C-alpha cells in the first residue's frame, strides 16, 4: 500500500463544511437500533464542541426507504425532502446536517437532479405549496453528521480519554471502516475522500489512534439493500454480503468496525449472530464477534462516555472485550439498567456467539 497515493486522492476529495449553526435531521431507524448514537452526537457537538445544532420537532422521514423500495415515486420523495428544507428555512438555518446515509444520498440526489432539471424543482416547489403551503430554500451546505465529526476529529482527539489503542500492549487497535454506500458511491465528490478510498472514517480512526484495516472486500456493501432485506426470502442475499465481508476481513483480526450508516452497523452486528447460528462461525477471538459501532459511539467511547449511556448494550456482539482492550471502566451490573435505573430485562443468550 502506498499511503501517499491515498493521501493524494484524499486531498482531491475535500468539501467545505461550515463551522457552526446546523439544522439537524434524524434517521428513522437509528433511534431504534442504536438509540445512544444521535443523542451522543448532539451532546458532543453542542456541549463538548460548543456548536449550534437545531432540531425541528416537525421533521419527518426523508422518504428514502419507501423511495428505494419502489413504493413511492421520486416526486413524492422529493416533496418530502422539500418540506424538510422548508422547515430548515423556517427555522432560519441554511446548513443541513442529516444523521442518515440513505437520507444523505436522497438529499444529494435531489439537489443534483434539481440542478440538472430546474423544471423539476419548480414542479416540486408547486407540489409542496399545494400540499403544505410551504416554501423551501435549498440548503447552502449539505453534510452528513459523520462529516461534522470528521471535521472536528482533532478537537475530539484533544478531549480524548481512551484512544483507539490496546491499553495493555500500547498497540493501536485494528479498525475496519465501513462507509454507507450512499455516502459517496453515487456522487464521489460529495464525500470526504471520494468513493474508492473514502476518508471520512479513516480520518477519525487515525486521529483517535487506531490503525485502519484495508481488506479486499472493503468496498462491498453490508448487504442491507432495502429490497433484499425487507423480503424474508431474499434475506439470504443480504446475509451473504455481510458474510463475504467478514470472511475477507477475518485474517486481519480487526478489533472493531466503525460505520457511518444506519443499516451497516445493524447488519454487520446482527448478521454475526445469524451466521454464528447457521455456520457455527464467529469472527472475533474466543467465540466473540467483532463489535460494529457507529462513529458517534466510537467518538463517545474515546471521549470517556459511559458505555451503557452510549447504548452499547443494544449491540448483539458483546462490547466488553473491546472495552477491556481499550481500558474503559464499566459496570457489568448496569448493562441492562435503563437511564432511570430500572431493570430492562436481559436478552436470551445465543448459543453460538458469546454475548457477555
Amino acid at each position, binding site marked *: 500500500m502506498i499511503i501517499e497515493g491515498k493521501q493524494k486522492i484524499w486531498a482531491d476529495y475535500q468539501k467545505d463544511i461550515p463551522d457552526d449553526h446546523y439544522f439537524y435531521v434524524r434517521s428513522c431507524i437509528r433511534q431504534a437500533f442504536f438509540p445512544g448514537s444521535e443523542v451522543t452526537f448532539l451532546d458532543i457537538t453542542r456541549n463538548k464542541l460548543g456548536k449550534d445544532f437545531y432540531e425541528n420537532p416537525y421533521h419527518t422521514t426523508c422518504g428514502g426507504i419507501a423511495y428505494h423500495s419502489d413504493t413511492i415515486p421520486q416526486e413524492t420523495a422529493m416533496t418530502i425532502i422539500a418540506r424538510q428544507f422548508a422547515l430548515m428555512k423556517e427555522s432560519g438555518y441554511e446548513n443541513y446536517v442529516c444523521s442518515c446515509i440513505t437520507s444523505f444520498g436522497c438529499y444529494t440526489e435531489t439537489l443534483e437532479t434539481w440542478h440538472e432539471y430546474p423544471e423539476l424543482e419548480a414542479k416540486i416547489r408547486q407540489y409542496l405549496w399545494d400540499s403544505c403551503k410551504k416554501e423551501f430554500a435549498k440548503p447552502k451546505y449539505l453534510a452528513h453528521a459523520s462529516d461534522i465529526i470528521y471535521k472536528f476529529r482533532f478537537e475530539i482527539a484533544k478531549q480524548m480519554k481512551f484512544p483507539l489503542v490496546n491499553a495493555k500492549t500500547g498497540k493501536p487497535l485494528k479498525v475496519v471502516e465501513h462507509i454507507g454506500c450512499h455516502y459517496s458511491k453515487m456522487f464521489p465528490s460529495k464525500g470526504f475522500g471520494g468513493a474508492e478510498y473514502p476518508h471520512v472514517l479513516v480520518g477519525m480512526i487515525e486521529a483517535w489512534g487506531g490503525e485502519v484495516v484495508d481488506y479486499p472486500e472493503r468496498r462491498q456493501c453490508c448487504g442491507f439493500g432495502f429490497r433484499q432485506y425487507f423480503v*424474508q*426470502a*431474499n*434475506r*439470504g*442475499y443480504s*446475509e*451473504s454480503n455481510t*458474510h*463475504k465481508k467478514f470472511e475477507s476481513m477475518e485474517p486481519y483480526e480487526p478489533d472493531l468496525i466503525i460505520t457511518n450508516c444506519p443499516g451497516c452497523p445493524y447488519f454487520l452486528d446482527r448478521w454475526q449472530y*445469524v*451466521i454464528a*447460528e*447457521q*455456520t457455527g462461525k464467529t469472527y472475533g477471538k474466543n467465540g466473540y464477534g467483532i463489535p460494529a459501532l457507529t462513529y458517534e459511539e466510537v467518538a463517545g467511547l474515546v471521549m470517556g462516555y459511559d458505555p451503557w449511556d452510549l447504548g452499547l448494550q443494544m449491540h448483539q456482539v458483546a462490547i466488553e472485550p473491546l472495552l477491556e482492550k481499550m481500558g474503559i471502566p464499566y459496570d457489568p451490573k448496569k448493562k441492562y439498567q435503563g437511564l432511570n435505573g430500572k431493570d430492562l430485562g436481559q436478552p436470551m443468550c445465543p448459543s453460538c456467539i458469546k454475548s457477555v
Partner: protein
Amino acid sequence: MDFGFCLSPSSHVKMDSIDLTTFNRLKETNPDVNTCIACGSCTATCTAGNFTEMSFRRLLLMLQRGKEDEAKKMIQRCMLCGKCTLVCPRGINIRKILLDITR
C-alpha cells in the same frame, strides 16, 4: 435455528482455487483448446443444441472455470455429428476434444 433464509452461495468463479486438471490434460493432447475466440459458431450449428443447451464454447469455458460437473453433464447431449468442427473459424478439432473429454 430456522431463520427462513440462509447464506446464498457465491456466484463468483474463484480463480485461485479452481481445479483445472481436466482442462490441462486436454490442453496437452489438444493445444487447440487455447485458440477458441468464443465466436459461438459451434453452438449455433450444433445438432444437439437445437434441442438442448449444448454449447461447446460454453463447455470449454466451464472446464476453464472449474465447472467440470456442469461440463460433463452438458457433453452427454453431444451427438458427435461434427458440424461444429466444420464451422470453427480457428480450425479447432472440436470432435476430438469432445471425445477426449469423455475418455
